[in-house]
C-alpha cells in the first residue's frame, strides 16, 4: 500500500506536483489544516455494546454537551469517523462490531468505554464476553472506569483530537498493516463465522443447545 495514501488528505500525485513547483511546504500546511479540520469535526456512531451506553445520553445532551467540541452523533457507520464501543463485547456483538467498523470510511477511529474491553473487567470469567478487544480491533482511545463519567468520555474526545491533530499513527493504519493478525484473532475467537453473511439464515440457527 502506498504510504500516505490513506493517511494524508492528498494523494501522492498531488504531493509530487507541489514538490515540483517548489511548494513542498504547501503540502505540509494543507496536511496540517486538514488534520485540524478532522480533529474539529468528529462524527460518532455510538454502538451501545454494554453498560457504558447509559452515559452516552448525558455526554451528548445539554449538561455535558459534546457537540460544542464538534463531536456529533450520526446514525450510520458510513458517515462516521469514530465508533464508540461502550462496554464489554459479547461474541455475538463482536461480529456486528467488526462489520460496522469495516463499513466505516477511512480515516476511522475506535474509542472504548469502561474496563471490560481492556481486560474483561467485572466479567473476566464470563463465557460470553471477550477479554482483550485490541486483539480483534485496533483501539485508539480507551476510557477506563466502570462506567466512565461523561467528563472522562469528553476527556477521551480531547485526547483523540490531539492525536489526530499531531498526526499520530491511528488505529486503522495498524489495522491495514496487520490485517492478517487481526483477522486470525477474530477467526480464532469467533470460530470462522465473522461476517454476518446474507446467505445464511443468520438468526434462525439451531447450532446451540446440544446437551
Amino acid at each position, binding site marked *: 500500500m502506498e504510504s500516505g495514501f490513506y493517511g494524508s488528505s492528498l494523494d501522492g500525485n498531488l504531493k509530487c506536483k507541489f514538490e515540483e513547483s517548489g511548494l513542498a511546504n504547501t503540502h505540509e500546511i494543507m496536511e496540517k489544516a486538514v488534520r485540524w*479540520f478532522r480533529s*474539529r469535526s468528529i462524527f460518532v456512531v455510538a454502538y451501545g455494546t454494554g453498560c457504558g451506553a447509559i452515559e452516552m445520553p448525558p455526554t451528548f445532551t*445539554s449538561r455535558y*454537551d459534546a457537540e460544542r467540541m464538534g463531536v456529533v452523533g450520526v446514525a*450510520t457507520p*458510513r458517515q462516521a*469517523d469514530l465508533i464508540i464501543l461502550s462496554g464489554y463485547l459479547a461474541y455475538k456483538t463482536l461480529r456486528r462490531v467488526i462489520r460496522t467498523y469495516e463499513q466505516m470510511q477511512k*480515516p476511522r477511529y475506535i474509542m472504548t468505554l469502561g474496563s471490560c474491553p481492556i481486560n474483561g473487567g467485572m466479567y473476566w470469567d464470563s463465557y460470553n464476553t471477550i477479554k482483550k478487544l485490541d486483539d480483534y480491533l485496533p483501539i485508539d482511545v480507551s476510557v477506563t472506569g466502570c462506567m466512565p463519567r461523561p467528563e472522562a468520555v469528553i476527556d477521551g474526545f480531547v485526547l483523540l483530537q490531539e492525536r489526530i491533530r499531531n498526526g499520530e499513527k491511528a488505529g486503522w493504519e495498524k489495522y491495514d498493516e496487520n490485517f492478517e493478525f487481526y483477522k486470525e484473532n477474530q477467526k480464532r475467537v469467533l470460530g470462522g463465522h465473522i461476517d454476518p453473511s446474507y446467505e445464511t439464515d443468520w438468526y434462525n440457527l439451531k447450532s446451540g443447545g446440544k446437551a
Partner: protein
Amino acid sequence: MIFQIILLIMLAYVVGFIYFGLYRNITARIQGRYGPTVYQSFYDSIKLFSKNNTVSYGWMFYLGPVIMATGAVLTLVLVPVFSDSDFLRSVTSQGNLFVLLYLMVLGPLGNALAVGTGGNPFGVMGVVRGLTRLIGLELPFYIAVVGLIIAANSSDIVHIIDVQKTAGLNIINHPLLFIGAMISMVGFFGASPFDIPGAPQEVYSGPRTEFSGKFLALLMSQGSLFAFAKLVLIVDLFLGGADSLVMLVLKTFTIFVAIIFIGIVYGRYKVEQAVDFLMKLPTLIAVLGLARIVWFG
C-alpha cells in the same frame, strides 16, 4: 456574468453554511446547551471532502449527488438576490418561476436514481418517503405561487418584486398565501414535523444512508446552497426582495428563525399523516388566498 455566478455560488455557500451553523447553535441554546460554533458546518464539510471513499455502486450512484447539486446551483442562479441592482442577478431574466419550480424537484429525482442503485433498503425507504412527502409539500406551495403570478400578472420574479414596491409587500396583501407557502417551506427545509425521509429512529439517515465522504460533503454543500436559494426565493416572493446585503441577511434570517422555532417544538409526523395534514390545512389556506385574489383582486 460567469464571475457573478461564481461569486453568487460562493456567497450562497458561505451564507448557507453559516445559517446551518446558526441553526445548530440556536437549536442548542433552546435545548439549554452551548452548541457547536457557527463555523462547525464548514469544518464538517471540509473534513468530509478529505475522507476516503471505498463505497461504489456504479456511476449512477456517483451521479446522484451531482444531479442534486446541479439542481441546487441552477435554482440559485435563477433567483434574483438583490431587487434593485443588477449585481448578482446572473441569469434571472432567462427563466421564470415555472422553471424554478421544475428545478426544485430535480434534486429529489436525482437522489432517487442514485439511492435506487445503492440498494440499501433504508435508503430506498427514505426516498419513497421523501417523494411521498413532496406530493404534499408541493401542493400548497404551488397554489401560493400561482396566486402570486395571478396577482402580479407575470411569472417573472423580478416583476413580482417590482410590483411589491408599488402595491405593498405580498406578506401583507396576501397573508393566506404566505402562511400556506411557509408551512410547506418548513417541509422543504426538512424541519420537524416534516423531517420524515431522514428520520434516524426509523430509517437511519434515509437517502443519505449509503453516502459517505465526498458525496456526503457534496450533499451537505448542495443542501446549504439550496437552503439559501429557497430563503431568497421566499424573501423575493413575499417580502419584496432585498436591496442590500444587510437587508438580505435580515430578511432571510427572520424567515429562517421562524422555521427553526416551528421545527423545534414538534415531533415528527408519519408520512401519511404529513401528507394528510399538508393536503388539508395549508392547502385550504392557500386555496382561500387564491380565491381571494381571483374574486376580489
